[in-house]
């Protein structure tokens, strides 16, 4: 229990659109150990992305608490929450999320500018991660010059730049071919092992889910242990 990196207690998220109420998350409880590799599966619209964004400090839950590495996420002020997103979290979004005016390597290094720390080798690290992900020749390409899969890999690289303690990956390999997908997964498990980075992976791919330590299943906003 003392080794928990993420503790979610009774989290609810209700969207109200007009008269309609959507229970996107219902009574979620979760306790994740540091360094574990977890996957979440579920149908479209079941609430997977909503859960990740509540954990990642992007969507405030209607009720309940999220504690990340000891910090009560939704009780932090803007500066605290921003620092947490910047330093502890690596978010890989389901949809494209690059800044179109920046080259691939700048996109990867971008989180650095919101940091107080002075990391002089940020570009070295960005280059290294991009190379591991097979993009050593695309460092200076703009997003518009990259394929969908290449853009996705740049976004993945960015999530790792600040050595986060937890990666929230929302279908990170959705638009990758089998070859790139396995490269990415290999990279994930290497980081997971070497740096004890915790992974929360949302996927539709049962095969991928099968490779993880534990599988959770999401259905109509309810999370069950689908082991």
């Amino acid at each position, binding site marked *: 229990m003392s080794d928990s990196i993420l503790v979610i207690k009774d989290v609810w998220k209700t969207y109200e659109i007009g008269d309609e109420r959507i229970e996107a998350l219902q009574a979620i409880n979760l306790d994740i150990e540091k360094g574990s590799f977890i996957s979440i599966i579920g149908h479209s619209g079941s609430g997977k992305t909503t859960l990740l*964004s509540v954990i*990642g400090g*992007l*969507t405030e839950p209607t009720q309940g608490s999220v504690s990340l590495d000891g910090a009560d996420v939704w009780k932090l002020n*803007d*500066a605290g929450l*921003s*620092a947490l*997103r*910047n*330093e502890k979290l690596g*978010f890989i*979004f389901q*949809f494209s*999320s690059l*800044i*179109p*005016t*920046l080259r691939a*390597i*700048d996109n990867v*290094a*971008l*989180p*650095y*500018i*919101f*940091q107080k720390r002075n990391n*002089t080798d*940020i*570009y*070295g690290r960005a*280059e290294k991660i991009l190379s591991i992900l097979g993009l050593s020749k695309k*460092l200076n390409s703009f997003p518009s010059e990259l394929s969908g899969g290449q853009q996705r890999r740049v976004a993945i690289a*960015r999530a790792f730049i*600040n050595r986060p303690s937890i990666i929230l990956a929302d279908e990170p390999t959705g638009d990758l071919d089998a070859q790139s997908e396995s490269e990415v997964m290999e990279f994930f498990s290497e980081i997971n092992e070497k740096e004890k980075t915790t992974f929360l992976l949302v996927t539709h791919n049962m095969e991928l889910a099968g490779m993880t330590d534990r599988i959770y299943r999401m259905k109509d906003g309810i999370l069950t242990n689908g082991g």
Partner: protein
Amino acid sequence: MKHRLSLLFLSMQNLTRRPFRTYALVLAIAIVSGAIFSTTTLMWGVNSSLKRGLSKFGADLLVVPRGSLISMKSALLTGEPSVFYMDSDILKTIASIKGVKKVSPQLFLSSVEGDCCVMGNAFIIGFDPATDFTVLPWIEEKIEAIFQMDYAIVGGSNSYNVGDDIFFYGQKLKVFGKLGRTGVGLYDNAVFINIEKAYSMAEESHKLPGVSPLKIVRGQISASLVQLDLGAKLPFISFTISKNPDVKVITAGNIITSVRQNLVALFSSTLILSIVLIIANTLMISAIFSTIINERKRELGLLRAIGAKKISIFGLIIYEATLLTSFGGFLGVAVGIVIMRIYQRTIIFNLKSLNMPYIWPSAASIVLLAVAAIGIAVVVGITGTFYPALRGSKLHPYDAIRAGE
């Protein structure tokens, strides 16, 4: 690889993404700052040329016959007053007042071309070399040391040159010296002669055929120039002199004030235009940046997700507006300078015809005005983007990222 990331870099990249929009905004801002810079520079130039001229003039007070007060004020700046005379006894009265250091008379003669060789109109001023403190000190070049009876001194704007011969009322005068330009129209255009020569010229004029004679009697003067002791109480002295009902006192201060009123009247329309431009541009910037925020919702949400604080988002947008408007402001000032340089003859000519003397402000003043004009442009940018930037910073990060999905 070299570090290049910063909020500044991000803002600059943002400005390159819609070049046409950026150019249009820069140009709009340039028009505002250029207009403000040019009008203030011209105003400043008129104002400082007034001040410089009047301080060069050297007189703290000018005592004139009651009737010529109004024409004197404008004449000082641009040219000829209508001529009135008073008795020279006033000089002694003024000299006896405590705090008065120097008094010197001047006699104005309405200009008439002589029977030979005088080009155009020249306004003749008789002065007393013995007591003078406003003419002789400002001679820039002269032919010899002593000012003699049939010598003349010409104002800085005059077309005569040192050494020329000029003729008034049949009398030949030699140009002894030329004054530096003062911006005081009365002085810049005048021809100065010894007051004794002026009296004798008036007497002689009665003998000349075909010329209306000068109706001046020895002992009459048009103005007495007064210099005060350091620390003398100007209002008190002015009040004491004014007890004489036949004279009026003009101070440098109230000349500047009256011209400044003209100046404000002339430029107030431009000022109103500038204010309208400022407001219109602020609103335009505001509208355009609202659109920009909407376009970039996803990116702003994304920046929040990777650790940008609300204040950083706010700063990023304000930064962008500042870059844009300072660049526009700079361009406006640069173009303003170029245009004023190209058309400087026309500008000065037009100001002169409006009774406004003009001297270019010093480089330091121009820099100051330029910085102020650019500053106004930046304030327009910041004011205009304030609300859109605030909205951008308050975007709900996840909804913003999802926008357009």
